[in-house]
């Protein structure tokens, strides 16, 4: 049996300095039309750009009916791979062959138009996925029934909740019977019932011989659903096995080693504007903390940078994720209007991590930076400068604080009690 998906040596290069890329492309176009290449610019442009490979030499084959889970940390290249396979972006290197129609669900409400009703959007999405009108018509009732939004099918999508949009989007994608279904972390939105319904549907889909590629940070659903698993790290394929539990184990182990309490530049990261040098957690005095912290402990995120050119728009900050790699928030030193502008030289950016906010558990702190309104340097998608923050032993704050709250954060907030008068 010929493989349904054949990926050979796929690589994807991004140029991080986006402003330079724009100028360059326009020059390229003008240059290629009039072949009047400006040599000075041509020589100069590569310096403006920092290239980075989001995917390097990824190869694998898939047979019909396989359900492939892709795991890896943020920036490992999972979404890039899915985007290439669903033809949204093109690879820089390599080739992929897909023997069948692809239905991809890369984000909630993909391609839904807010002004149109659910019904109109089902047809619209169906056409874009390559179906004829009568084919959509034949499946329409089933789609609507599965999504559970019957009552709102003639309501404009803009009045839908994100959960409803997701239900409808998933339902459309699953019922259009593409041979290959590509799903990126969409199950995170729906409630537990619908998640289970989706997982059930995906099982049906795969048992009817169709192929699924599934990206999730939720290792539980990967384990439940997939009969094969790929572990991506820094854009390369680290593990590929039908033993899903084994791959997940590898990933967790790697994660353990990788996510240290301190990140420092090994000399492989450098921008025109700054060189990020260190990311760590410290106490008030600036002493590094390389251990789990307690929830009520006051700690600081410390970022060391060599600022090479002074810029009013330089923004350095961090993003913080929970154990499931969901973004909790991100913050830049320039968030405040009157924030100080860093001078040239070795600068320490230090920000107090609010105490009494985080629940017990593991968090990831990621260094992000950019020149505001101009271009990004380290984005949440590509920054590998990450450290781990472990919060332990949430103290019982009062005799009425019962056990562990199952929320991402457990802020202790100020309350005032006064008499009504």
């Amino acid at each position: 049996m010929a493989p349904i998906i054949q990926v050979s040596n796929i690589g994807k290069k991004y140029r991080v300095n986006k402003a330079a890329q724009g100028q360059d492309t326009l020059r390229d176009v003008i240059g290629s039309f009039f072949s009047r290449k400006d040599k000075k610019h041509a020589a100069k442009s590569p310096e403006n750009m920092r290239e980075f490979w989001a995917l390097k030499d990824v190869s694998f084959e898939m047979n019909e009916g396989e359900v492939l889970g892709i795991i890896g940390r943020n920036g490992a290249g999972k979404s890039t791979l899915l985007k290439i396979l669903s033809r949204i972006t093109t690879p820089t290197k390599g080739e992929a062959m897909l023997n069948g129609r692809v239905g991809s669900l890369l984000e909630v409400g993909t391609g839904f138009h807010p002004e149109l009703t659910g019904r109109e959007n089902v047809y619209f999405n169906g056409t874009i996925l390559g179906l004829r009108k009568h084919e959509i018509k034949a499946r329409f009732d089933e789609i609507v029934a599965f999504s559970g939004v019957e009552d709102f099918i003639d309501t404009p999508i803009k009045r839908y909740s994100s959960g409803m949009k997701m239900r409808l989007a998933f339902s459309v994608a699953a019922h259009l019977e593409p041979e290959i279904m590509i799903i990126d972390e969409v199950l995170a939105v729906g409630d537990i019932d619908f998640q289970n319904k989706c997982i059930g549907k995906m099982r049906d889909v795969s048992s009817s011989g169709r192929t699924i590629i599934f990206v999730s940070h939720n290792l539980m659903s990967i384990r439940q659903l997939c009969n094969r698993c790929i572990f991506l790290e820094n854009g390369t394929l680290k593990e590929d096995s039908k033993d899903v539990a084994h791959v997940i184990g590898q990933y967790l182990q790697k994660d353990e080693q990788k996510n240290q309490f301190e990140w420092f530049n090994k000399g492989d990261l450098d921008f025109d504007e700054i060189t990020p040098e260190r990311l760590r957690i410290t106490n008030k005095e600036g002493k590094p903390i390389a251990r789990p912290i307690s929830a009520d402990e006051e700690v600081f995120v410390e970022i060391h940078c060599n600022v090479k050119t002074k810029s009013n728009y330089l923004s350095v900050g961090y993003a913080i994720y929970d154990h499931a790699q969901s973004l909790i928030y991100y913050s830049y030193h320039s968030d405040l209007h009157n924030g100080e502008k860093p001078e040239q030289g070795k600068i320490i950016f230090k920000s107090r991590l609010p105490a009494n906010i985080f629940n017990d558990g593991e968090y990831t702190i990621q260094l992000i930076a950019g020149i505001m309104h101009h271009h990004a340097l380290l984005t949440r998608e590509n920054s590998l400068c990450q450290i781990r923050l472990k919060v332990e032993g949430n103290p019982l704050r009062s005799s009425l604080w019962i056990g562990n709250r199952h929320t991402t954060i457990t802020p202790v907030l100020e309350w005032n009690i006064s008499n009504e008068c």
Partner: protein
Amino acid sequence: MLEKNKAIQEGAENKEQSQVIIRPQSDLTILNNIHDVWVNRDIAWTLALREIQIRYKQSVIGVAWALVQPLITTLIFTLIFGFLVKIPTNGIPYPVFVLSGLLFWQYFSKVVVESSGSLVKNEGIITKVFFPRLLLPLVPALSAAVDMGIALIILLALMLIYGTPPTPYIIFLPFLLLATGLLGYGIGLILSPINAIYRDIGIALPFFIQIGMYLTPVIYPVSFVPEKYQWLFLLNPVATLLDTARAVMLGNPFPSLAAFGILLLWTALIFIIGFRCFRKLEPAIVDRI
């Protein structure tokens, strides 16, 4: 797209045959591009239908606006250029003359403006779903046809009122409209990707469109211009289309063969540049967002 696309639509019926090869570089020719657009015309229709649905969702205002706009414009131009300036129009009542020009010009300019903005406007879709993005600049050529159709009805009514019945050649009018839409699409193919990178094109465009209207015989006939400058209109493809339209509708003289030749050259050139420009910048646009 930068990949070859074999029988993707036929695959809807016999799915086993659809095969897609994803490659970094493509050797797509103009014919491949045209084929791509043709095979996926269903999507263009759906997108256009969506545009129309959204535009006329509050149907009363939508249709009324499409009626009022050409009427008021015709009225103003008739007052200024028909009564005050008294532009001679070779015996054709000025309102009929100017509306026949406006109809074409407004359709053309709407297609150019909207199709140049099509990639920016649909950013949300192009980064999330795959479909041939070449179709996006084509959509305005279809959706703007509704407004134009309404204006055409007004024009026919005016022609009846003024007692200037159309010539039998009017059956060629759809072809002229098609050619106008295609010309606008071609320009949109060039401008839409550039506009996605340099948004200022979208800001500057209406200004140039305005200038374009005065350089095209919309509110005045070519004969109004001193004879030694009339050859300049040969170079303006929209002028040729417009004069042909007036010839088939109002019985004006047809433009010369040279004018048609230049029109064809323009169209070919615009599409060659358009497809190249679009294909070249397309990947960059998706990755930028």
